[in-house]
């Protein structure tokens, strides 16, 4: 699934480590999501959308 996590994170000027800490996951997990190796659960996807103050469909594209 295509996503805009990397762009949104860069806009916020957060490192992968900082985003991971805010989400309560590891830096490797954030990278796996950004590189589209891993599709997060709905819970984590909502957490990401809330953090970026976006709708979930603005962060993830089906």
């Amino acid at each position, binding site marked *: 699934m295509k996503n805009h996590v990397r762009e949104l994170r860069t806009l916020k000027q957060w490192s992968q480590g900082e985003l991971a800490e805010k989400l309560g*996951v590891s830096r*490797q997990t954030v990278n796996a999501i950004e590189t589209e190796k891993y599709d997060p659960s709905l819970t984590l996807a909502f957490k990401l959308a809330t953090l970026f103050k976006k709708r979930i469909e603005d962060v993830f594209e089906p």
Partner: protein
Amino acid sequence: MLQSKSLVVEGKYKVAVFAGILVIATLHLLNSGYRDWNSGADTAYVLALMLLFFSKEKIDDERVQSLKLTAMYVAFAAGWVVTGALRFASYLKVRPATPETSSANDAMFIVLALAFALFHYWRFQDGRSADIGMKDEGRE
């Protein structure tokens, strides 16, 4: 809570312990022969690998759970093939590397070792890509 905390071991230490178990098990197998290996020592190795594989990671998130499950699926299939091949080689009397029989503990040892190696390899790949990502952005 206390129990889950006590099981948390950092990945690098787990890999070191895993390498130690593999070295000791291999030396034991080569030194004492398959009969001694199969007299109960194999159970200890399997238990050690189970503890290592099923203990919590430092950050035990959903990606870790997903990778562990996938590693177990792949290792189970691969382990089934490997133990099947060992038994077949034993049937054909290929010497000297193959044992007469393969026990359930042998199969579990192979499956757990494969699962552990796969899981940590995939985690390493995730981390490695993360480093590249950081360099691209000129951060950290």
